[in-house]
């Protein structure tokens, strides 16, 4: 009975069973319906509708399929589905900004989308199929898409070499290198330079402990909104290498006392010729004369001075050497004279050339520096430091080692610290979960994190050891961009290792020339066979350009050829013997294979050719729009008034054929000149002479100019 009752199917049960089956079927049916409503399908359908509204529908829909599109990038070992929605990405007719996203074509870039995909540059999640997950960092994914303004960071992942196409990346790398971030951090593709901050082994002989106190406390002058100095620091540089450390006054005191004791080698006071000192001691104009000499020597090519103009403080001068506005408050005159006579004796890695001073010039320039480049109020808020207790010296030494000073500065007996800060060589590949945001009120993402860390690391981590840098406003995004490009070892096979080049002096000539080259630090400004600075012209083929006599005259008395240049070659007072060595080497060795001086004999061009050349110069090609001859003409190219003495005949001819073949970044455009025109222009240019030879040439040419 019981079993019968159990097996009995009541109508109620039937109904329940039927209903649940219907509900189940309905659910099953809803699943494809839901599938139909997926986000990417919406864009698929939209695209078809959009393509049908365009005249080239057929082409736009040629590759269309209704499923998920993905591209496989075997070289990058990646698959991505971005093209599922961005269906017009490769269609040239959809490049216009009126085309709605996500269908717009990609603007022209050197990488084709089909070969490189999207994620390698834009980041984000290539496999995601919803808008949010593909572009943003959500809970399930870790990398968000880069804003376009930071996308140059992705260029940096593969392109380690200089990259003019990505100016912000290049700028960021430049700042990273300039500020010696490698002192504390490992950075992808950057090597630690030999000298970071100055060697402090002997700093006690150079400056006072009061100055060190001031420098550590208030390194920079800070101006308020009205342009008045609210902090009267030592330096005025907008972006100094030395940051502000977070020391308290007791710590600064200890460090200043410790550093003030570093006097490894005594500085011997230089004895001027007694006649000079006697003659100039009581004459106030010596200071003005020193200033004139300072300017004539073009110290400002490397050093800047702060000048107040119209209420605003401006720095005038270069940034290879330190800013000098208040230098006399820092150094003592014995040290200054010692330094100026032989910088490398104090600091072997210094970039400062060793000038050939006359006693009189040295005396005057030192008088100028010590009397004018000083600030009486600089130490007004520095306490009297008095004598040091040994416990303070010990504390100073400990701080020096523990707070990262020894990452950049050498003191004999203290080991230099490498990798004091975190390794940043793959910082750009970090995912959100790898970042410590602390209590910082910023968006939880890599870019705001990097920005906040560099602008003020305390805002992210109150125990940060990183000192306070004062980056220029426009440099901060550039720095972040450069760090985004640091994603660890090269991950894309076949691209090879590219290294960020840092100007090096690997071109190291030997012999007498090598000595002079090293003494005058030619490579700090000039480039030789790919090594050296970029401030001044590349001299790799200078011997082909100019005759030896001109080179020798220029070395003795450098005069600028380009009126627009602010920075000029300093006057080094090179000795005649050194001039001979330098000019001889440049003439013999620094030659271009393209310029054959012997192929063009120093023929006397006929007067008719000279006249035609002058016509071409002045009327047909109007070269005067960029070049000056005498007192009229343009500023863009060099002054040609002395072209006949300055340039070799063969050089002029080669140059006129194709300027960029000789100097790749020359501004002068290449023109279609006939051989006859080239000869005529050359004939005219060689008659342009200044100085003693001008008259002779004029007589020989029957008045060429």
């Amino acid at each position: 009975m019981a079993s019968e009752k159990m097996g009995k199917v009541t109508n109620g049960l039937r109904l329940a069973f039927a209903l649940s089956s219907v509900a189940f079927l309905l659910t099953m049916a809803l699943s494809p319906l839901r599938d139909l409503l997926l986000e990417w399908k919406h864009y698929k359908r939209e695209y078809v509708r959009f393509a049908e509204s365009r005249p080239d529908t057929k082409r736009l829909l040629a590759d269309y399929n209704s499923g998920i599109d993905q591209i496989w990038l075997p070289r990058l070992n990646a698959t991505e589905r971005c093209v599922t929605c961005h269906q017009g990405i490769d269609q040239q007719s959809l490049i216009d900004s009126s085309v709605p996203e996500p269908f717009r074509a990609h603007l022209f870039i050197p990488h084709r989308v089909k070969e490189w995909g999207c994620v390698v540059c834009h980041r984000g999640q290539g496999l995601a199929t919803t808008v949010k997950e593909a572009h943003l960092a959500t809970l399930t994914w870790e990398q968000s898409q880069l804003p376009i303004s930071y996308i140059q960071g992705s260029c940096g992942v593969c392109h380690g070499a200089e990259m003019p196409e990505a100016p912000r990346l290049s700028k960021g790398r430049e700042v990273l290198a300039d500020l010696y971030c490698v002192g504390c951090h490992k950075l992808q593709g950057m090597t630690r330079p030999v000298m970071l901050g100055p060697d402090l082994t002997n700093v006690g002989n150079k400056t006072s402990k009061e100055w060190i106190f001031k420098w550590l406390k208030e390194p920079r002058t800070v101006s308020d909104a009205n342009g008045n100095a609210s902090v009267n620091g030592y330096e005025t540089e907008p972006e100094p290498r030395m940051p502000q450390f977070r020391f308290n006054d007791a710590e600064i005191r200890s460090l200043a006392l410790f550093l003030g004791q570093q006097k490894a080698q005594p500085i011997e006071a230089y004895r001027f010729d007694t006649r000079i000192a006697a003659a100039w001691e009581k004459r106030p104009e010596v200071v003005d004369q020193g200033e004139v000499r300072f300017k004539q020597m073009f110290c400002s090519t490397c050093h800047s001075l702060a000048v107040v103009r119209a209420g605003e403080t401006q720095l005038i001068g270069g940034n290879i050497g330190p800013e000098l506005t208040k230098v006399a408050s820092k150094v003592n005159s014995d040290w200054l004279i010692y330094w100026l006579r032989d910088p490398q004796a104090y600091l072997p890695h210094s970039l400062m050339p060793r000038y050939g001073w006359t006693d009189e010039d040295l005396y005057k320039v030192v008088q100028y520096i010590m009397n004018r480049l000083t600030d009486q109020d600089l130490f007004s808020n520095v306490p009297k430091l008095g004598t040091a207790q040994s416990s303070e010296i010990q504390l100073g030494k400990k701080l020096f080692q523990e707070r990262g000073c020894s990452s950049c500065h050498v003191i004999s007996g203290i080991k230099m610290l490498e990798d004091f800060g975190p390794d940043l060589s793959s910082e750009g590949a970090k995912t959100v979960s790898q970042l410590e945001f602390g209590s910082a009120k910023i968006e939880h993402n890599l870019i705001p994190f990097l920005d906040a860390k560099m602008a003020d690391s305390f805002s992210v981590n109150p125990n940060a050891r990183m000192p306070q840098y004062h980056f220029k406003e426009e440099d901060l995004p550039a720095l972040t961009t450069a760090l985004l490009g640091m994603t660890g070892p090269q991950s894309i096979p076949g691209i090879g290792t590219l290294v960020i080049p840092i100007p090096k002096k690997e071109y190291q000539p030997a012999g007498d020339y090598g000595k002079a080259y090293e003494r005058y630090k030619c490579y700090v400004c000039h480039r030789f066979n790919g090594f050296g600075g970029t401030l001044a012209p590349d001299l790799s083929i200078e011997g082909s350009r100019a005759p030896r006599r001109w080179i020798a005259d220029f070395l003795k008395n450098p005069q600028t050829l380009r009126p627009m240049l602010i920075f000029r070659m300093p006057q080094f007072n090179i000795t005649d013997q050194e001039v001979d060595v330098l000019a001889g080497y440049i003439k013999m060795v620094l030659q271009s294979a393209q310029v054959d001086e012997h192929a063009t004999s120093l023929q006397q061009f006929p007067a008719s050719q000279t006249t035609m050349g002058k016509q071409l110069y002045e009327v047909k090609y109007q070269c005067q729009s960029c070049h000056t001859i005498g007192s009229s003409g343009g500023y863009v190219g060099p002054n040609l008034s002395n072209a006949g003495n300055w340039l070799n005949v063969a050089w002029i001819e080669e140059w006129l054929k194709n300027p960029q073949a000789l100097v790749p970044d020359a501004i002068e455009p290449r023109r279609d000149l006939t051989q006859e025109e080239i000869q005529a222009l050359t004939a005219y240019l060689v008659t342009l002479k200044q100085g003693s030879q001008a008259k002779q040439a004029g007589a020989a040419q029957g008045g060429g100019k």
Partner: protein
Amino acid sequence: MRAFSAVMTLLVALSFLPGCRQHHSLTTEAKPLDSAYGTEADWNNPQRLIPLNYQQVQGQRVFYHECVWCHADSTPAGPSNRTNLTPSPALANDGATLNGLNNDYLQNVISLGGSAMSKSAMMPPWGRTLRQDEIKAVIAFIRQIAQPVYQGSSSAGPKYSER
């Protein structure tokens, strides 16, 4: 029973939810310059930054190497060569003069020089120094910085589509 069907209904309703999500959730709070590859300060108002795309940034680079000396009033080196020249070259952002010239014309005058286009011979030809795509990029750059703003020339110019 009633509870069972309620659960089913709820499940069905829930399954719709993902599909109902907003499709354009990416209209972010982003600042306009976030989507710019680079920027150029408006020459008439240095506070205002003009967004530049990749091509325009390449044009900007070429412009500041080759063109700026005569087509701007201040240059990276300081003084401008513009005042030395008669007739005075157009400022690169001078929309009143340049907006009326179509891209083909500008491409030609830059490539072939002033004398080939019956203009001043002081404008040299750049066609053998710069690549055609570099010249197109320069045009794209000066279009973007033009004041008054460039609205597109009447005749369609060459599109930046070749490699």
